[in-house]
Every structure is written in structure tokens, then in C-alpha cells.
């Protein structure tokens, strides 16, 4: 019996489990008391998605991105989005080389595996869409020449939901490009004390050893995409998506891409939880982070936080009304 239990599907799963555990432990060293946020970031990485972190300044958004980037043996770059940032500041630019008498392409910060796009809603829509195009296609096209970004490629975007002065909120169609939107939240008392005790004040001083190589990440992503989803679970996802489409409080329902995102995220979630198959709980836990930012309410709300909260309530009601496959 014992031999029959967990993870018989092959050494790939066992390896994946070990790798994820290593990554999680490494990140925990800098991010205190935010295990679920860490898990979701890992899910996003495994599902080849991009992450939008939305919270107040100073709760650890950037730290999270740093700690993930430092744990991986990959390149990392950070772009601080401001209203005068140009698309070429993100993607790179072709400049004329006097010596060779030709244009050469100077890669921008987007040519890194983990890209931290800080305060993305401060940039102009033009710059935002330049980044979003890369997120979608994994390529940058300059002067008719396309340049592939590094793989794995993951964008960490952060934005501040409260301070809307002088911002350009992302349109819904572009929100769709993010696999998940999560909140950090304040740390618990005990955890915060630990943070206060720590010496580090500078991001660059975050001292973490890389635990995963580029190939290991690619392998993990491959395994995650092969996690088995049983028909009744697929049907459950479908029912959730369909319910958002008939819900009268939403302007529009979840797109097909949204449904796919939920499935991929659930697969990655199953893998981070050590399984090679998805159970309904994996899906329900991810409904709010993967679907919440793709929906908007019909009725006007007083502010962004209020809308987030209301959407969460409706989604919760939908999930409770749909019976989980048993």
C-alpha cells in the first residue's frame, strides 16, 4: 500500500516536488508569514503566467519579486514605470553604430527572465502596451526584426490601487494578459517583528542563493502543463466560467482565455501541492486571484477597493452555488 501511495506517476513528479520545496523554503527566508502569496507566485511561474501584485506601497511587493528572481538562476531586471517612460525604454532601441556602419539593437530591460514592472499604472498606455505585447507574444519587434526574450519569461507588475492621481489604469483587455492578480496584505504581528529585526533595508542586499536553474524551471513548467485534469473537474471549471457569463452583476463574463488560465493555474497549483492531478479544491482556491481582475461590475462603485471587494463577494457566491464534483 505504502508503495502505491503518492506520486507514482514517475520520478518527474518526485523531482518537481523536491524542486518546489527548495524554492519555497528559499523564498520563505525573506518573505515572512506569506506562504500563500509565495505559493501563488510559484504557481504563476509554473503556469508560465504573469503576475500583477496590487497593494499599498511598502508591504513587500518588490521584495517578493526580488526573492523569486534571486532564487532562480536567471536574469532579472526592474523597470520603474513613470509617466515619461517611453516604449523604447522598456523594449530597447536600435542605434547606429559608427564603426560597423549599421544599426544594432540595444536590448531593453524587458530582455530578462524575471521583469519587475513597478507601478505599471503610472506609465502612459503606449508604454504599457509595449510591455503587454511582449508578455503576450514573448517577442519584441523593432524595425521589422523580432527578438525573442529569455525563457522562462515572467513579468511581475505592481500597482497601487489607492493613489489614482496621475495614473493610467490598465484596460480590461490588458488585465486579461495577467494570469493572476494578488494582494500582499500586512504581515501578522509575529512575522512583522521578525522583519523589523532583520538588518536588510536594501533590495540589493537580499542575499539568496539561486536554487533552480533555467532548465529545471523549464522542466517544472513542462510537468505542470501535463498535470491531469479529470472530466468532472474540467466541467466544474466550465460551469464556473459559464456562471460568470450569466451573472447580472458583471459587465461581461470570463473569456475563453480566462477559463484556460484557470485551468493552467489549477494544474500548477496541484503540482505545488504535490499532486499530479487536479482536485476541485485547487480550482476553487484560485478562482478569485485568476478571475477577479478580468471582471468588472455593472453598477458604479465609489472606488477601486470597493469594486475589488464586491467582485470577490459575487465570485464567492457563484462558487458556493455550484456543487463541487464529488
Amino acid at each position: 500500500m505504502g508503495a502505491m501511495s503518492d506520486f507514482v506517476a514517475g520520478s518527474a513528479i518526485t523531482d518537481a516536488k523536491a524542486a518546489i520545496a527548495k524554492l519555497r523554503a528559499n523564498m520563505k527566508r525573506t518573505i515572512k508569514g506569506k506562504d500563500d502569496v509565495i505559493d501563488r507566485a510559484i504557481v504563476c511561474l509554473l503556469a508560465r503566467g504573469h503576475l500583477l501584485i496590487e497593494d499599498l506601497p511598502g508591504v513587500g511587493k518588490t521584495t517578493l519579486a526580488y526573492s523569486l528572481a534571486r532564487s532562480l538562476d536567471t536574469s532579472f531586471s526592474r523597470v520603474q514605470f513613470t509617466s515619461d517612460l517611453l516604449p523604447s525604454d522598456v523594449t530597447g532601441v536600435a542605434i547606429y553604430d559608427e564603426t560597423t556602419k549599421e544599426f544594432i539593437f540595444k536590448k531593453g530591460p524587458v530582455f530578462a527572465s524575471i521583469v519587475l514592472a513597478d507601478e505599471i499604472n503610472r506609465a502612459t498606455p503606449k508604454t504599457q502596451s509595449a510591455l503587454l505585447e511582449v508578455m503576450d507574444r514573448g517577442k519584441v519587434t523593432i524595425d521589422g526584426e523580432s527578438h525573442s526574450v529569455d525563457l522562462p519569461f515572467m513579468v511581475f507588475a505592481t500597482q497601487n490601487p489607492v493613489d489614482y492621481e496621475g495614473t493610467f489604469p490598465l484596460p480590461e483587455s490588458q488585465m486579461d494578459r495577467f494570469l493572476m492578480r494578488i494582494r500582499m496584505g500586512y504581515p501578522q504581528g509575529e512575522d512583522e517583528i521578525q522583519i523589523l529585526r532583520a538588518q536588510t533595508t536594501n533590495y540589493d542586499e537580499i542575499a539568496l542563493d539561486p536554487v533552480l536553474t533555467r532548465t529545471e524551471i523549464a522542466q517544472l513548467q513542462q510537468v505542470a502543463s501535463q498535470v491531469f485534469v479529470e472530466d468532472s473537474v474540467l466541467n466544474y471549471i466550465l460551469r464556473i466560467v459559464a456562471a460568470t457569463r450569466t451573472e447580472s452583476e458583471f459587465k461581461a463574463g470570463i473569456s475563453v482565455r480566462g477559463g484556460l488560465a484557470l485551468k493552467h493555474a489549477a494544474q500548477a497549483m496541484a503540482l505545488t501541492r504535490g499532486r499530479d492531478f487536479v482536485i476541485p479544491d485547487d480550482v476553487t482556491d484560485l478562482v478569485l486571484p485568476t478571475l477577479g481582475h478580468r471582471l468588472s461590475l455593472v453598477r458604479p462603485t465609489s472606488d477601486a477597493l470597493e469594486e475589488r471587494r464586491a467582485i470577490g463577494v459575487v465570485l464567492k457566491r457563484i462558487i458556493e452555488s455550484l456543487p463541487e464534483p464529488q
Partner: protein
Amino acid sequence: MGAVLALLSVVTVFFMDIDAWLLMPLVTVAAILAWVKPTWPALLPGFVHRLAFPFIALAFVYDLTSSEEPLPALIRLDLLLIFYRLITYRQRRDDLQLVLLGLFLVIVAGVITVSLSFAVQLLAFTSCALVMLLAVTLEHADGQSPKAPAPGVVPSWARGTWGAHFSRLRAATDWRLAGLGILAFGGLVVLSGLLFLAIPRFDIQSSLFIDRLISRTTKTGFSEDIRFGDVTAITQDDSLAFSVDLTDSSAMPLVPYWRMVVLDEYTGDGFRLSSEFRRSLNGYSVPRNRVNGTNLRPDYNAPSWTFYMEPGISRYLPLLGNFYSMSFTEPQTFRLSDQLRIIALQREPPKMFAYRTWNMDTRSELYDPTFALNRRENPAVAAVFLTLPESAQDQARLRELLTELKPSALADARRFGAATIDWLEDLHPYALVSSVPAGDGDTLIRWLDSEASGHCEFFAGSFVMLARAAGFPARVVTGFRGGTWNDFSGSFMVRNSHAHAWAEVFDEKSSSWVRFDPTPGNQALSNLSEQADGATGLSAVRDQSWQARLDSLRVFWYRRIVNFDLQTQEQLVSSTKQFFQAKSQAFIAWTDSRMEALRDWVTRPWDLHRWGMIGGLMVVGGLLSWGWRRLGARWWLTVRRHTRRSTDQDPVRREASRWLQKGARQREFRWPEAVAGDLLRLRFGDTPSWPDPLKVFRAARRALRSHRDR
């Protein structure tokens, strides 16, 4: 489902003689449309719904006042309401209305027709209604009250195809529950069948009053007034008129002539019962159960004849001739005409009517000494059977025609009959459509003068006229001729298509009315009928068609509900009881003997051989159970897995789901880590990665059991 219900109940109206020729097809078409194309009610404009109820109410009031009969009006109202329900989308409470409306129709029809199809309909209706109510209940099970449909909007269920509906139904059905339901329904049917056997019969027939509310018109037209062509019109109808049970089938003549109405007065375009006879047959009499006939030979070995008459045939009862006695299932108001030897009920029976005669005379001569005696004393008695057409010209023409016969033929009635039949047959061919040449004067005389073809009534009428002109008292008799033997029910069936008219001429010598059938081709058989040998006779008219099968069901049903005495029923109940008693006694005896044998076996001295046998048996049993656990259960699981298609219905997944739910229901219970993982894997994991299902389930059972024991 509602449409099926409506159809089932509406079909019953076809069995009743309710005047609803416009509504019936309308409702039927609406029901079928609702089945085939559920989207169409949305196409109705809104004013239809607004006007519907005032219109229905008005129609009902008008109907009630104009027809002055409450029940048909009620039934028409019911039909209208059903129709309206069919052309709109129903809410839940409307479904219940539909069930009630349909039930009303079915019950009314059942009471009126008293037929087996009623029972079948009620059965189908009940099952349909049950399924429909179940569906309604299931729909409400989510606890939300459904939104009222907006007029003109197609509800979502109407858009799907039938295939989709069925697959949803399949997915939603718990087959064990469905099987249980079917079993319970079957039990109910058996129980009600037993009850039906046991309840006393009399109240079915008499204590319900609904049928009294309907006045009927005779369907076939065997009344006291028959015009030429009436009888032939009846023969177009092939439905059953009556059936006869006979205790000794050899008594059945080869070609029986079922006398119903005797007509004496010629009207110029037909025959009718003269007013004197009519009065004597219509007068009131005390209801009686039994009547003695004019056949005065009590013969206790003679067979008894039981007639089951369909409703709407006539108020005159078919008979073969004189009988010794007749009895009814319940007291009846009726008159027996001594002179015509026919029996008329006061009212035409609205439902199946049964009577039984003993010792019936089946010969072609109707012995009537009273008439002979009366005639000798007072010749005016016979005058009514000797009237000719009024005009002297017609009378002269009749006498003229008689001269074409040989003088010897006028000597006595029998010879006259034979000669006239031959003469008529030579002159006129038989046809279902009579062509009477145009001209003045009497119809019959004109026909006689021509060589036109004619049907039985013309032959019988002319024969009677000629006989009267020759001075023989004569009369037309209408009824049925022949019939078929139904092998399935063992009874004799007479259909409306057997309707016929013939003649009776009084023969002074034998003091009896002699039957003559002047219709070409019948006379030969008509003579045969006297010395018919029952067995060969019946085999010649054996009917084995599908129609006969259906009719036999009808007869079977009649036999069950009609009871001349309580004896047969008591016999049946007591034999059923005896059967069960005998079986239970046999069972007890068998158990006793087994116990005895066991006791013997235990008390016998124990030796090595017996110990060895017990040991061997235990080993074999153990091996068998081990083999089953090892291989059989797995084989069974494999078989079941391969008969399902969707992974969702995989029995292993279902079983795993069952165990997971069981665990979730237990308080303070957590699966051991390994078992939980395996169960989840069996439920949601990929098939190749599965652990051995049987082992996992066994481990789950152990885990639950140890939790309960704690």
C-alpha cells in the same frame, strides 16, 4: 410530459359520444405540436392570453345554456382548458391543473365506457403524472422559486433538442431510485389488481350516476323506424356490436339470425313499428331482474347464452328466438312484446349492457300458437301484418306481379316463400347501393318493376309486400346475421357490419313465423342454419385477426366486471386464498422436514469421514471467497468499467467519490494520509497512475471501521 397526459386523456373522449368534433382535433394537434416543436407557443400574440379566459368562460356559459346538458358542456370546458394549457408555457401550478383536468376526463370516460382500455389508460396516466410530479419536485429541489416566464419569450428548455433533454435526464437519474420507483409502481398495480378481484362488483355498474347525465343518440340506428338504406349504412361500420358467451358452443347455428326489431308498418320509404306496438313497448313497467319468455319447455341441460352488448347499438336486445327465461345483472325497466317476440329496454343502455338467456330456440321458425289462435277467432288481429301500400294502383300492381308465380306457389307460406325468393333473385342482383328507377308511385313497387340491383332491405321489403298481397301475414325483421368465432376469447362476435334485414311469414300449418331471407345467396345458408353442427359450423367462421385479439380483451374485461351472481367472484377469491394457503403449508412442511433432517444429522455419531467433509467444505468455501476477493471483484469492476464511456461515469471514480463523501460525513474523521491520497487519485487522477482500486477501497473500509470502533 404534459402533452402526453393531455393526449392520453383526450383520447378517452373519442370513446364517448360527446359532441366535440371541433375541439378534439384541435387539442390533439396542439398536443402533438407541443411535443414536436416546443418553441411555437412563443409566437402567439399577447392578446390571445388576455382574451383566453373571458372567451373560455363565455363559451362555457353559452354551451351550458344552449345544450342544457351539464356533463357534455363540462367536458367541452375541460377540453378548452386543456387546449389553452397546451398552447402556453406552463408554470408549476399549471402542471398540476393539467393533471387534474386530464384525470377528470379519464375518470368520466372510464365510468361511461366501462372498458378495459380505461384501465390501461388510467395506468399510463398515473405513471405519467407521477413522473411529471417528480420532475416538478426535482426542479424545485434547489430551493429557488422559478421565475415566471414572460409572455412571448421562449424558455430555455424549449430550445434544446430531444437528444439533449434525454441525455440530461440520463445524467440526472439515479438508476437505483428509478428501479425502486418502477418496482413500487408495479407493486401498486398488482395490489390494485388483487383489490379489484376482491371488491364486490355491483357498485361499479349501478352506483355511479355520471352516465345518466348524458343522453345518447343511437349510433347504429336499430330503432323502430327504419328507412331504406339505414341497415346498409350500419354495415359500413366494422366495430363490435355485441359478443356472446355460450356454455355449449355446439348449440350455435351455422348462420345465426339475431332478431332485434320487428317492423310491421310500411311507410312508403321504409318500415316502422306501428303505433300500437310502439305503445306497448314503450309503456312503463316495474324494474325486474328476470323475465320468463315464451319458450315453455324448461330444459335444464340447455345452454345459457350471455350477451355483452356494446353501448350505442340499440335499446332492442338481439335474440335468436323464443327463450325460457332471461336475467339481467340488475333490475331493468323493459317490455317484452308477446306478439313480436322482441324485448325493448326503456332507455338505450349508455354503457355496456349484459343479459343472459336460458334455453333459447335457435330454429328458423318462431313458434307462436297465440297468434294462430287469436287469428282464428278474430281475423282482424292479423290485419296489421297484411297492410299494403295505400294507393289502389300500387296494390293492383302487386297482385299483378303475383300472377308471375306459379299458382301452386300460393298454396301455403313455405312454398310461396321459396318460389318468391327464386323469382326475386332472378330479377334483381344484390348490391350495397340500390338504384331505384325514377318515376311516380311507391318506391318498392318501382323497384320491383325494374331489374335494378338492391340491398337486403329492398329484398326483405318486397318479399313482405308480395307475401301480404298473397294473403300471408308477413313482417320485416332487422338485426344481425352471422358473426365470427373468436378463438382468443372463446366467444362469438357480431359486428355492425353483420347488420341485416329479412322477413318472417306466418305459416298456418306449423303455427309459427317462418324466417325467409330473400337477399340473394342467403337462402341456402338460411336453411342450413337449422341443422348446423356446432363444431364444424364455428370452425368455418373462425376469426384470428388482430382485431379479434383486441376484441377478446374487451370480452375478457366484460366477463370480469359483469356478474350475474357473486358466486364466481367468491370462487375466484377462495381459490386464490386456497392457493396461498396450500403454498404456505407446503413451505412450512418443507422447512419442518429440513429441520428434522438437520437434527438427525447433528445427533448422528461423529466420525472422521464427516469431520473431513466439513473441513473440505470449509476449505472450498474459503478458496471461493478468496478467489472472489482476489479475482472476481476485479473482474466485475473491469467489466463494469468497459461498459461505460465517459470517465465521469467510471465505476472506480464513482466508488472513490462514494468513499470520500462517506469520510466527509463522519465527524472528527480524517483519512490516513496515504488512503486520502489514493482515494483522491482514483477520483481525480489519470487512469494509468491509479493504484489498485480494490486495495484502496479495502483500506478505506478499514480506516472508516477503525474510526467507528473508537
